């Protein structure tokens, strides 16, 4: 550069700087979506993270969270050393200890309980992705008090789907994005399948022939781009769906052909009120149900290949009065009670719109069929020369499931799909392997425990009637969370949200050790935060904590860490092995199965250990079966990656955590002997494995011969029988019969009415509990939370980039509603529920149901947590609705208190919250309340500036090894290709859907 002041300096831009020394593939874990990532490493630091274009989940895209992975890795809140509490719980005073001491202590605490009474351990895990592993560990330990976070998450959806179609939404199914013409999305802000949904919506929106309807009280995010937004009133989707069904029935726009073959709609139900089999299917000696064949004019085995079933009509078969189950269904929903006019006011959706939407659905389903010229054979061996699809599809998540009436609503939506014949058809909603499963899947939860012995089976499973409940002789719950008891019989995922409450109240009993993993139970994942904090710190008269010992594994200084006694610091997702398994929450798509791994790509920072390794270590120390060899040596000395490659579900089953490259030579998939080089194969392939279904297996999976055989062979299902949609659910009726006094297992008195009411074999709608209990005029508004797309629960706030986007949540309210209440934009208000009050700032909008207010979930943080400064907006302006949601309902007339959850599944009813708003006094503006005391400050928070990347600019220092071959990159290495690609958005060629 010359110093001539008049010279115009021309910059030479380095267009091809060296990006990285090395690029490594792994799986993102900024959320549970499981996207494949390529991490560019330069001088040993992360230079850039991009989506892996080959990956079946994200095909090269990355969301905001995933893109901020660098800042998670360098978060000041990272735990660096095992901690042992020295102060009181909640103060945050710890001393650092060595791993030897930590592990010795943990195995002593856990081992002692196991020898005495393994039921006194409560082992609950949160947002981890290794539940098949942690569940297996719990089984070996003998801990029936095991569950993951699903109970407070979306078990209504899981149960609703699994008990109806053998598969549910979540990330376990997907709309046929390429072919669907009418897509309805209920109550979704982001969901687990976050990138696949976005990719799918992008596709849908660029097609001219598709319509996207969003049903959601809020119009943010996905809902904003919908072609039609239905701003429904919370908790009323059931009515809306019934009304659509009502319209379809009235117009006979029902796919009877498909119902006749693939559903229990024509199955005959005993109609003998008062009898012990009333409402159950009439079955032959082998257990086969009957249908009434109109041609043969008699009742025949419903499972027979050629039948012409009746859908209505009372008949007498085997001396019993029977009707096809469809008659019950039709009778219920044809009723005027569910006409569009009748539900319009409650749902807030005008009758005209309901009628039109029903008509549009019917039109697309029945007039715009899709035909794929592909033959297939059904489970009965009948050959079909084409695949005919009704291109209407649905997706739904917590908006309909996180209500106390959610189970029935979720079931209703699954039933609607079956009525339309749009399940797993071209253009419809499709299962992802290993789904569909038998309805319900065959695993039963294992209950009672014996000292020093493993459980008889896995602690979580599916139940089909009172006999499967985990209750004692008096009918009282066996589990600490009361899951699988008469209180919430179908609580498939356990009820983590009740553990602290129950343990402290010794209801049903107390525990000795609470062991938690990756769940922020002292903050955003608990209902009633102030109460929960008291549970953590509650003491007996003798001054000992009511929950004597709490062990917790977290990776960060969360709100929960200070409330625990022994902290086992976990490695971050870039520092550890992980396994996203077919036994768990795999990466399959409708096109085929898939699983993946995470490989450590950075040296762990600090003295941390991957929790899975720690569990295996603890298992070996305690001598747990499966984790110890006969000689007492550790079974998996290589830690979790050793387990991933070598563990088998059942000795010799050939099924293990990873399905790809099994067998000694790595040439088997799905089943096969463990392969010592399996992990290397995964790494070579970009850390994932996929397997495509044959064209003839792609649709109609529940009753597709070829698919069913293949799925059985792969071990996804136990047998290849067709999976028949259970519109009418007999298992539910069994509970009801018990409540009516039949059978030898009957509910305790306090549960009878609940069971009778809520175990209806066909979906019902009732007002959500909180709404029904309170004075609705007093608390006129629904209060909801939504996930911001760029934040994952509590993890995001420690992230220097993400918190710049959102650091203080506001309460969004309809401008008109605000006007009526005299509330102006940016005012501060008290948000009062019957349970308590919290203060926040309002934002006036119009894209929200007028009777609803909403805020972003989990943005509010406690002072002193997450490595944030005490002045951080997260803890001064951000607030949680959790503070004012009660975990229990008000006592009923008999004085019984139930969990604030769905009565069938135990799903936490987060979205039942009702509030009133009350403008703050001027001096109350500007800061949130309640504001809990600050924790001990962690010093790392005082970084005035971050200049991340400054030193990564330009030439590499040469310290890293320049590696030009892209691990797992199947595209041609293009270093020699010149020029620029002129492309359309992210639609990279060769992208899989």
């Amino acid at each position: 550069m010359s110093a001539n002041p008049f010279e115009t300096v021309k910059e030479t831009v380095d267009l091809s700087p060296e990006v990285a020394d090395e690029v490594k593939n792994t799986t993102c874990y900024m959320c549970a979506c499981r996207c494949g990532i390529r991490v560019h490493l330069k001088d040993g630091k992360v230079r850039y993270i991009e989506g892996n274009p080959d990956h079946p989940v994200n095909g090269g895209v990355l969301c905001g969270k995933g893109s901020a992975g660098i800042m998670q890795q360098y978060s000041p809140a990272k735990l660096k050393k095992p901690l042992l509490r020295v102060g009181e719980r909640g103060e945050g005073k710890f001393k650092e200890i060595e791993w030897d001491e930590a592990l010795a202590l943990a195995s002593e605490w856990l081992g002692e309980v196991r020898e005495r009474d393994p039921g006194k351990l409560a082992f609950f895990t949160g947002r981890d992705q290794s539940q098949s592993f942690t569940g297996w560990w719990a089984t070996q330990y003998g801990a029936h008090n095991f569950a993951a976070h699903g109970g407070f998450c979306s078990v209504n959806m899981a149960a609703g789907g699994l008990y109806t179609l053998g598969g549910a939404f979540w990330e376990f199914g997907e709309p046929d994005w390429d072919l669907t013409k009418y897509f309805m999305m209920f109550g979704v802000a982001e969901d687990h399948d976050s990138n696949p949904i976005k990719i799918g919506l992008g596709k849908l929106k660029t097609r001219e022939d598709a319509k996207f309807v969003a049903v959601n009280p809020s119009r943010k995010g996905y809902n904003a781009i919908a072609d039609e937004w239905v701003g429904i009133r919370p908790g009323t989707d059931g009515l809306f769906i019934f009304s659509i069904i009502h319209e379809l029935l009235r117009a006979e726009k029902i796919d009877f052909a498909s119902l006749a073959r693939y559903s229990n709609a024509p199955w005959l139900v005993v109609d003998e009120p008062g009898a012990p089999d009333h409402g159950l299917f009439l079955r032959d000696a082998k257990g086969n149900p009957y249908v009434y064949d109109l041609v043969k004019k008699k009742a025949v085995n419903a499972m027979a290949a050629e039948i012409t079933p009746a859908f209505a009509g009372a008949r007498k078969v085997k001396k019993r009065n029977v009707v096809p189950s469809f008659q019950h269904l039709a009778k219920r929903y044809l009723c005027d009670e569910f006409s569009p006019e009748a539900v319009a006011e409650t749902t807030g959706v005008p009758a005209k719109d309901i009628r039109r939407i029903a008509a549009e659905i019917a039109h697309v389903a029945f007039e715009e069929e899709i035909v794929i010229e592909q033959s297939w054979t059904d489970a009965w061996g009948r050959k079909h020369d084409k695949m005919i699809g009704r291109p209407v599809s649905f997706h739904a998540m917590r908006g309909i499931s996180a209500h106390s009436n959610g189970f029935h609503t979720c079931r209703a939506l699954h039933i609607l799909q079956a009525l339309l014949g749009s399940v797993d058809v071209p253009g419809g909603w499709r299962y992802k392997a290993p789904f569909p499963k038998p309805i319900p899947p065959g695993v039963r939860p294992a209950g009672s425990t014996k000292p020093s012995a493993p459980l008889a089976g896995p602690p979580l499973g599916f139940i089909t009637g009172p006999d499967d409940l985990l209750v004692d002789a008096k009918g009282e719950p066996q589990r600490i969370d009361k899951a699988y008891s008469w209180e919430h019989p179908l609580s498939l995922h356990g009820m983590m949200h009740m553990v602290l409450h129950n343990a402290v109240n010794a209801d049903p009993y107390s525990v000795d050790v609470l062991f938690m993993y990756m769940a922020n139970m002292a903050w955003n994942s608990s209902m009633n935060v102030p109460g929960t904090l008291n549970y953590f710190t509650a003491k007996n008269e003798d001054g000992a904590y009511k929950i004597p010992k709490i062990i917790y594994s977290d990776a960060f200084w969360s709100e929960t860490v200070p409330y625990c006694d022994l902290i086992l610091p976990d490695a971050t997702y870039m520092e550890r092995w992980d396994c996203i398994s077919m036994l768990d929450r795999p990466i399959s798509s409708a096109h085929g199965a898939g699983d993946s791994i995470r490989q450590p790509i950075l040296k762990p920072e600090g003295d941390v250990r991957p929790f899975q390794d720690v569990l295996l270590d603890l298992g070996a120390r305690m001598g747990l079966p499966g984790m110890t060899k006969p000689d007492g040596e550790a079974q998996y000395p290589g830690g979790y990656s050793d387990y991933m490659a070598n563990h088998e579900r059942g000795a010799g089953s050939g099924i293990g955590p990873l399905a790809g490259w099994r067998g000694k030579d790595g040439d088997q998939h799905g089943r096969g002997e463990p392969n010592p080089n399996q992990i290397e194969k995964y790494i070579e392939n970009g850390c994932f494995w996929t397997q495509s279904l044959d064209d003839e297996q792609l649709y109609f999976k529940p009753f597709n011969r070829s698919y069913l055989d293949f799925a059985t062979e792969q071990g996804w299902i136990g047998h290849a029988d067709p999976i028949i949609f259970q519109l009418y659910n007999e298992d539910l009726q069994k509970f009801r019969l018990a409540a009516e006094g039949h059978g030898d297992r009957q509910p305790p008195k306090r549960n009878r009415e609940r069971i009778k009411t809520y175990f209806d074999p066909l979906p019902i709608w009732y007002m959500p509990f909180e709404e029904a209990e309170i004075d609705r005029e007093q608390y006129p508004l629904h209060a909801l939370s939504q996930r911001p797309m760029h934040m994952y629960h509590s993890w995001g706030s420690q992230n220097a980039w993400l918190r710049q986007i959102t650091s203080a949540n506001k309460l969004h309210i309809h401008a008109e509603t605000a006007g009526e209440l005299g509330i102006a934009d940016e005012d501060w208000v008290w948000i009062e529920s019957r349970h308590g009050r919290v203060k926040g700032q309002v934002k006036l909008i119009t894209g929200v149901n007028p009777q609803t207010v909403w805020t972003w979930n989990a943005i509010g943080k406690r002072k002193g947590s997450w490595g944030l400064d005490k002045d951080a907006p997260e803890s001064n302006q951000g607030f949680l609705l959790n503070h004012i949601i009660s975990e229990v309902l008000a006592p009923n007339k008999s004085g019984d208190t139930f969990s604030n959850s769905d009565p069938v599944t135990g799903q936490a009813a987060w979205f039942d919250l009702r509030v009133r708003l009350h403008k703050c006094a001027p001096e109350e503006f500007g800061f949130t309340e309640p504001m809990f005391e600050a924790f001990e400050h962690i010093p790392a928070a005082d970084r005035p500036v971050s200049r991340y990347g400054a030193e990564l600019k330009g030439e590499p220092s040469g310290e890293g090894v320049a590696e030009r071959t892209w691990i797992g990159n199947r595209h041609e290495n293009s270093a020699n290709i010149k020029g620029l690609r002129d492309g359309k958005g992210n639609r990279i060629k060769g992208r899989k859907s």
Partner: protein
Amino acid sequence: MHPAKSVIFFTTTTGAGYGLLFWLAVLAYRGLVGPDFMFGLIAFGIAFALVVAGLLSSTLHLGHPERAWRALSQWRSSWLSREGLLAVLTFIPTGLFALAWVFLGSVSGPIIWLGLLGAVMSLATVYTTSMIYGSLKSIPAWSIGWTSPGYLVLSLMSGAVLACMLVVLGGYWQAAGWLMLPTLFFLAFGLVIKLSYWSNIDRPNEHTAETATGLGEFGKVRMIESPHDQPNYLLKEMGFAIARKHSKKLRRIAVICAFILPFALVVGGWLIPEMAQYFLPVAALVCGLGLVVERWLFFAEAKHVVTLYYDR
């Protein structure tokens, strides 16, 4: 716009300094003040102090003051560059003129031409300063045509008030008598210009959130979620918003201090010459204060179109 101290200081002091340089040359040309050593030293001292302090303050507030010299290179397109260049060039005639006045004791012959050239270049420099702002279409308040007249007139006005004060204090009664007229004229003219400026910027302009986003066809546009919850650079720099109430009050203060009071004081000095030596320093002081308020408003009231994206 964020009313940064450095720019307020820079524009007011250089304006006054250049104005003073202008009037000194004119007075010399008219033969109303001679090459008096002390007067020259003090008058030019003040003028250059104002100019240099202003320029220095703006330079030192750069992100990289040590690279300031690079700002000379783009005079073909950039008003800021032109301003820098002219500011430097203007030092040549004005400096030589001042040296001649103070040290040679001469303002005659070619020297007066140097002085006049300096006067013109001073005004030109003020014009370039004004165009830094006046050329920014992104700030409608500045680009609608009143900015340059305002800067020029206010510079001549503040320079005149200062010059008046100096000649009165220096005992140049004849000069004072002559200068008071243009001083009063520019005080009045300045007020007119400023009032027109304000009435102009109070009118709605063609930029709205609807044009900014292009979403006008769907109706009235409002931001409901900001890209960042906390203020970002754009909001800190460009998002300054002043309440109408305050701006009204401040405008009143500016009008009184910058124009009316000085006007009254100059008139007073004219009517009661024996009080002029007291009135005029006060006039200069309040005028200066008033101009600082005026300049603060010039920035604070100017709305950058980017704020339309931020619902401000």
